[in-house]
């Protein structure tokens, strides 16, 4: 039987000290996932304490939800069990910054912007987001969040070298390491990428860093139609250029945020170029020429602060906290099918009260779409689920998928958030061996884990 909140609080206080366990209303409300609140919020000060909390939870069959900087807690259905919010806010030490070997090891609660602060003087960075990002490293890892410059610098799966994890039964383990080439045993680091904490709590991680480019420009170009913008994106991708990002954005939701004017139904192409002065200049010239030949109506080249602002907007768009009036969906497709995906999304379903807003990473094949919901729509959940089913069926033909990233709580609990996944059967097998009691983030990950 689950202990009472008071009993649980006193056990956690015994483990962590009174200053690191709370059961007061403001703190538990501040750690709500949708409307579900934990009985107790616990903030361990070290990996060993994380393991101790998990061991307690396992023994008492409690539901634990790990909490980094709390920026992505809307991902996945609300937890089926939620007794303890395991806050990683004290795990904020950078354990090793080895600039000569371009690696960094830090605790999971370290925010990405701290990493920037530390590495920028040496002209290095961790390309998993923008310099001001408040997301924690552990959060980025378990949500499989890569930066918008992934095309050039690689994504989470390319940059993560090692993890330390606490398992539900209290084991504390290290996998991977600090070197790029390391093939000793199974690469268990990868099990934690995108796992939403289903297989253990990441307490520390090692990443490889990249050198800052000598030069950096952002080409923003307005096109009269989505199709023209898409054709230009494809041409840029196929040319002998090495852009860091090739993204297309809709006029809806973006028009005011861009350095070029956009009218309804139009689209803008955003191409980041990183590299030496010579290569950036040349790519810029070729990029502009390609855009002109595809019917560009207006173009702007950004650098410095303006570029940083635009970069930040792109990152924030994909990862910001949800607006309760929106349904946010992420669609993944092979890059050549991005146009088809946008076509599917732009057929605004009846439950949308305004045009769909989107950011499409044409280089990677990932579209983040926001659908403004019509709160008056009849039987909204059934409509949304039917729409999801139909776009999933059509994306399936194109080797793509769609997941719900955020939705109002009344809706998300009725939706199939992740859709079918061919890997789910394997994930279930692992879950039963890594978290047999179902302590961690129960019901939040793919396959209902």
């Amino acid at each position, binding site marked *: 039987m689950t202990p009472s909140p008071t009993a649980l609080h006193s056990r956690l206080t015994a483990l962590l000290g009174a200053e690191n366990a709370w059961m007061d209303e403001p703190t538990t409300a501040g750690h709500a996932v949708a409307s579900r609140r934990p009985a107790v919020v616990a903030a361990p000060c070290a990996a060993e304490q994380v393991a101790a909390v998990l061991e307690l939870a396992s023994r008492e069959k409690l539901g634990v939800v790990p909490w980094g900087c709390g920026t992505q807690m809307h991902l996945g259905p609300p937890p089926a069990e939620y007794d303890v919010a395991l806050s990683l806010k004290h795990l904020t030490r950078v354990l090793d910054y080895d600039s000569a070997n371009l690696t960094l090891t830090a605790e999971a609660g370290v925010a990405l912007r701290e990493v920037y602060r530390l590495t920028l003087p040496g002209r290095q960075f961790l390309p998993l987001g923008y310099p001001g990002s408040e997301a924690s490293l552990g959060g980025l890892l378990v949500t499989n969040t890569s930066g918008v410059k992934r095309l050039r610098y690689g994504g989470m*799966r*390319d940059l993560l070298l090692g993890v330390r994890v606490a398992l539900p039964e209290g*084991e504390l383990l290290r*996998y991977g390491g600090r*070197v790029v080439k390391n*093939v000793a*045993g*199974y690469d268990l680091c990868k099990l934690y990428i995108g796992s939403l904490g289903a297989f253990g709590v990441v307490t520390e991680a090692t990443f490889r860093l990249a050198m800052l480019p000598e030069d950096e420009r952002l080409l923003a170009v307005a096109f009269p139609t989505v199709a023209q913008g898409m054709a230009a994106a494809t041409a840029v991708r196929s040319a002998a250029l090495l852009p860091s990002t090739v993204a297309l954005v809709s006029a809806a939701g973006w028009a005011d945020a861009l350095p070029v004017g956009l009218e309804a139904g139009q689209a803008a192409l955003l191409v980041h170029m990183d590299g030496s002065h010579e290569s950036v200049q040349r790519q810029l010239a070729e990029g502009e020429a390609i855009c002109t030949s595809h019917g560009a109506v207006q173009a702007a080249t950004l650098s410095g602060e303006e570029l940083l602002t635009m970069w930040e907007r792109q990152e924030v768009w994909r990862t910001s906290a949800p607006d309760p009036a929106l349904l946010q969906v992420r669609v993944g497709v*092979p890059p050549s099918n991005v146009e088809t995906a946008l076509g599917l999304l732009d057929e605004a379903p009846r439950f949308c009260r305004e045009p769909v807003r989107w950011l499409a990473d044409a280089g990677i094949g990932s579209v983040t779409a926001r659908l403004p919901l019509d709160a008056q729509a009849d039987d909204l959940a059934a409509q949304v689920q039917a729409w999801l089913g139909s776009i999933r069926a059509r994306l399936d033909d194109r080797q793509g998928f769609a997941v719900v990233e955020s939705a109002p709580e009344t809706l998300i609990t009725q939706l199939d958030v992740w859709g079918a996944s061919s*890997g789910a059967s394997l994930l279930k097998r692992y879950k039963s061996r890594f978290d047999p009691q179902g302590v961690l983030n129960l019901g939040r990950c793919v396959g209902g884990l």
Partner: protein
Amino acid sequence: MDSNAALADLEAIVGPQRVLRSRAERAVYGYDASVFRGAELLAVVLPTTAEQISRLVVWCRDRGVPYVARGTGTGISGGAIPTHGGVIIELALMNQVLEIDLANRLAVVQPGVVNQDLKRRVQEHGYAYTYVPDPGSQVVSTIGGNVATNAGGMHCLKYGITGNHILGLEMVLPDGDIVTVGGKAVDQPGADLTGLLVGSEGTLGIVTKIIVRLLQMPEAVTTHLALFKTVDDAANTVSGIISCGLLPAAMELLDKSIMQAVDKAVHVGFPAEAGAALIIELDGFSDDMARNADRVAEICKTYDVIAFETEEGIEAGQRLWLCRRAAFGAMARLDTDVYIVDGCVPRTQLPEALRRVTAIAERYDLPIVNVAHAGDGNLHPSIPFNRRRAGDIERVLEAGREILEACVELGGSITGEHGVGMEKQNEMTLMFSPIELQVMRRIKLAHDPDDLCNPKKIFPLSMLSEAVS
């Protein structure tokens, strides 16, 4: 087991021409490129489809017969050795390039496709793209083998290892289920299963389809050969190049011992005072190539380079690559066999690692020579020996273990790119605690509770015998 009945069953699954049963045929599949050999096999089967493999593994499971999937057997850690006999599932006939999809910069291949053949196929199409991973054995080794070992090569510094180039897999699990992980679309929801299964050395299932990334060929390539008095100077040059923001496609280091061997083999004419050679390959846009090459030359000067040569273009660069590519051939002249150690350290620890290798070589009285993927800190101390000379193998393996201990002490790994296989099972304890190994083994047990799929590999033997008892 009635072996005739068993062979009839296998023939019913893959067809009569596709079961090798003669004593000689079975014997040759007991070897790979390692120093190990396997137990007597029941048969070697050559399936052509995932469905056949599914039926084969179910047949094996129902009878408790172990099986090992095998490509071209170029692994040097014993990963494809049938230690417990049973059936070899030879993937040589599954060698089709199923799709080359340039719009998405990927190819879909069967596991038996040879590395070099895929590169050729991609280029035959007139496309300026390539599949990057280039293990030294690429002329004969297969993509399935790359996936099994998470193979490296010369160009990992800039382009990463095999795992970075694999987008998705189809795998037959030991219970016969055929699963797909990853795909042409990236970031499928859930864990990175593709990343987890790459490098599992054929112990979690049999990969039957692989989606690989293709990359654009670089517009320009410049190759440099720089000679230094000491390994330290060469290693400092490597770090200096990286810290100034350049990311060469390759940086390969040879120490004096291997330079002497190479000189004897291909007569390069290294100056007597040269104690280390560095091959540096830059690639990228033509616009900044000359400036980058000048920067490399400047950094080499900072570390007292004694000779520096440059070639432009891939073809011309081969002249400078010769001394690296000739290295393993040159070793073959030193004795009848070569044992190649595969350790990895943080790049800046490479000089210290090589100093320790030298000390170990002296202590064991072994003529160890060194090549290293210096940009990655991946060293390959290589020990010439004669397997027929009494005590040689034992001494060589013992020295190899000490080298790996040193690598781990310096913050590295017991294997950078060759895998654990049989060779390094006991060295796994240098990197992982007993509980870390037990948890890792949960993955194996989740796939293969009967331990029939490439059994008794990767994990320390002591742990495996406990599991049996």
